[in-house]
């Protein structure tokens, strides 16, 4: 039986199908030393018998192929991308340009401190700014993504608790937690204890009080949480957790709602991570690279990932900034080098461009836009947790489900209207969840357009649901068969 994935209709051939023997898209300089005899210098038994089957294309063919692929992508420069929890805000062009300065891209990580003061000062000062914004005492930019920051943070919790005499065994998470939270704390050696949220979508303080004990190493929460509501009883929460000797961990993925408004460090959090690729406008890159700095209060400073950027204003060594490797209590390294430096450059430029008032305006407008949307969409979709929200809110397509339309269908239909869908089926506590985060970089006109489209889809769900369940039709490909992909696994082209 022929596999349609290999020889059926294609929208864009793979780079392997485009290959033509003898072509090459790049010219190397002429070799100006004697060519090595590979068998002699590497040993014949170490060599491969045939070169790897890489494709053979000329430069224009490569450019066309990837340009055509690019054209099949939805992206935030095109239209609203209201993925809840993902903070798909505009990525300022100037930051890309700054991260592309040869004075940053061309620095080798083994350069001596004296010769790369600009780079280390940027790392140090970004850490200071993030500390100021969050109310933490110290920040390390080493973790390359949010989940890596979670791991680093949880390992610090563990090291701290061990130093108090017992690493403890459990970390509590609310049922609204992002999946990386339980996964990271498990990797840090803890058992995840999930507690149900209260009827208002917030942590039920009584449930929490009953769940904590001397084995509770930490309570890990997101605030505002993934339903978009602020944990108003944060002081009680902190007291309960600290009362049993536990630490309070903040998943800072939703920090956008707090910039210049409230600082987690003031609210009792001991350790947190940031997502520079959300809050601080660095692009997501279709799945990364991100950057997940981890911030701590002083009680955890000794455990920070190694090395730690530091400043000596008196320049005792002849320069101001360097890395401190002498950190005997450090959890060690979570990244091979210093973290995603070029991403950090973009976040640094972003903070300088905004300044303190600008940061606050980000939070204000993110929250304003979300509340505006929530208000306007409420007539058409169920709102399981009514009331003001912060930077995002969660609708349910439960009414539409009765009409035979699921959240997934709504998501796909949005694509036909040229908009991206919200996050669907998360958080898990809402059935048929549509999690919507407009961000501050959307205009009112673009919010109104989204409302019009959502309204149209709600109407279609009632009148002609097949339009919605049959979506998308306006995308480069129509609905894709995920079960075929999982059943007949094809994750690499051709024979290897």
């Amino acid at each position, binding site marked *: 039986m022929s596999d349609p994935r290999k020889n059926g*209709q294609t929208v864009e051939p*793979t780079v392997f199908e485009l290959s033509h023997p003898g072509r090459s898209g790049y010219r*190397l300089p002429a070799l100006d030393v004697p*060519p090595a005899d*590979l068998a002699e*210098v590497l040993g014949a038994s170490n060599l491969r018998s045939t*070169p*790897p089957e890489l*494709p053979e*294309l000329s430069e224009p063919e490569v450019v066309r192929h990837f340009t055509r692929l*690019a*054209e099949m992508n*939805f992206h935030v*420069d095109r239209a609203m991308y209201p993925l809840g929890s993902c903070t798909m805000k505009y990525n300022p062009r100037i930051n890309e340009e*700054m991260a592309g300065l040869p*004075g*940053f891209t*061309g620095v*080798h990580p083994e350069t*001596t401190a004296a010769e*790369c*003061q*600009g780079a280390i000062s940027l790392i140090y000062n970004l850490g200071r700014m993030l500390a*100021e*914004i969050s109310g933490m005492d110290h920040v390390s930019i080493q973790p*390359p993504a949010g989940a890596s920051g979670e*791991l680093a943070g949880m390992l610090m919790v563990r090291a701290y608790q061990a130093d108090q005499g017992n690493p403890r065994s459990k970390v509590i998470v609310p049922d609204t937690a992002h*999946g990386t939270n339980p*996964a990271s704390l498990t*990797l840090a*050696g803890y058992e*995840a204890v999930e507690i149900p949220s209260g009827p208002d979508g917030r942590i039920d303080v009584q449930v929490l009080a009953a769940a904590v004990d001397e084995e509770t190493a930490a309570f890990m929460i997101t605030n505002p949480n993934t339903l978009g509501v602020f944990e108003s009883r944060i*002081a009680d929460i902190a007291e309960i957790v600290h009362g049993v000797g536990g630490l309070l961990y903040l998943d800072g993925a939703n920090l956008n709602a707090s910039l210049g408004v409230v600082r987690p460090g*003031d609210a009792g959090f001991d350790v947190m991570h940031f997502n520079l690729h959300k809050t601080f406008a660095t692009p*997501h890159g*279709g*799945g*990364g690279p*991100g950057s997940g700095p981890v911030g701590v209060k002083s009680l955890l400073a000794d455990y920070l990932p190694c090395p730690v950027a530091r400043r000596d204003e008196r320049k005792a060594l002849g320069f101001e900034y360097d890395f401190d490797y002498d950190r005997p209590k450090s*959890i060690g*390294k979570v*990244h*091979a*080098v210093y973290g995603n*430096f070029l991403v950090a450059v973009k976040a640094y430029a972003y*903070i*300088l461009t905004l300044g303190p008032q600008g940061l606050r*305006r*980000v939070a*204000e407008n993110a*929250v*304003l836009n979300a509340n*505006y949307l929530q208000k*306007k969409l409420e007539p058409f979709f169920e709102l399981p947790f009514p009331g*003001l929200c912060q930077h995002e809110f969660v609708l349910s397509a439960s009414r539409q489900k009765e009409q035979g339309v699921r959240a997934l269908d709504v998501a796909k239909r949005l694509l036909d209207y040229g908009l991206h869908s919200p996050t669907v089926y998360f958080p898990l506590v809402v059935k048929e969840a549509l999690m919507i985060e407009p961000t501050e970089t959307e205009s*009112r006109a673009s919010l109104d357009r989204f409302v019009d489209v959502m309204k149209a889809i709600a109407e279609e769900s009632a009148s002609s649901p097949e339009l919605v369940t049959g979506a*998308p039709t306006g995308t480069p490909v129509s609905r*894709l068969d*995920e079960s075929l992909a999982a059943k007949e696994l094809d*994750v690499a082209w051709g024979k290897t």
Partner: protein
Amino acid sequence: MPYVPNTDRDREEMLREIGVGSVEELFAAVPKGLRESVELDVPGPLSEAELVRHMKRLASMNRTTDDVVSFLGGGVYDHTVPAVVRYVMGMPQFYTAYTPYQAEASQGTLQSIYEFQSLICRLTGLGVANASMYDGASAAAEACLMALAITRRNKILVAGTAGPSLRAVVATYLEASDIEIVELPETCGVTDVSAVDAHLEGAAVLLVQHPNFFGLLEPVDELSVKCADAGVLLVASVDPLSLAVLKPPSDYGAAIAVGEGQSLGSPVGYGGPLLGFMAADKKYLRRMPGRIIGATTDTMGRRGFVMTLQTREQHIRRAKATSNICTNEGLVALGAAVHLSLLGKNGFRELALQVTSKAHYAALALSAVAGVDLRFEGPFFREFVIDLSVPARRVKEELGRVGIWPGISCGCYYDGMENSLLVSVTERHTREDIDSLASGLEAVISPGGSS
């Protein structure tokens, strides 16, 4: 505020629609005491012109590999990045997109990552690859976790010749478990095969870096045999460029191959972003961490791509996921796919040949200098260790003054190697660069030299 479209008037109208009197009211859920005190002390706001001036000043305080003749490597390599790679990575359709959650609107990302996976499979000879990891070090750590889960054993063997940062990250990932980590001793710069037997029993994995931190080829065939006999999974951390000429990990029975892909189209960038990759024997696909892209068809029978086997991942499996990774290094993986496609079968091999040739030319030229010896005899690929008759630190300092960075001081990472330098060569080095290093060393080291 250039990035916020709402005007004051918009705000007022929107507040009215919401039914609140002020923006402050929107934050009513935030306890007042927490809200009222905030007065951030951060610099800015800067105009674009001011920002550029400041950033250029910072950038100018760094010496780059263009400003000097640099032989720094050790895992991050200064190759030429073709303009096309930068161009494609700079397409907003790619870089301003999120993870491809809505497949039908993300075919560009999905197909290019499928192509990346396919290219990694072709380099490593293994059947399956994932969509990327943070870096080669975390990929190695994840491979160990994967092998531990597969074998249900609780010990790992790590070659002491694997890069120090790789070993450090592996140790961090295993810190909270009661897994025993055995560091295998070296002899002549490579893993001492005869010392392996003593540790094999009960081990889940043997992690070897090939070529290793010193640039040397490891005795992978012998290690492979030992692993196979003891039911230990062999994990090879490989330099992707070396795979243009070296036999693929599949040939020596590696169950998992990981590596650092920075050399595939990324600048040195002060060490990040990097690019971790992971490939494995097909039978371990369901044990792999991270995202995996698979081919499928749409309702009209056309080929398309989706994220597949997501039930392994954190957003579904939560505490029981194969890994906590979510965001990976997608854009860097795209860059690697473009890079490999552009160089292609012949260009990539030619690049590896040039790097090998220049590295060996350099080794000969440097070891001809009195007071400089090649420390190890074994075959090496792109870098090698030299022993100097004087401390490496001093040599680095003195050569730095004439714009030559001769390599990494091994003493920073290995005891007793204070006089050793790891010298790394790429296609960017000209014969003249290498000759200047040789004469520079001669001037610094020889008794009549500047010391």
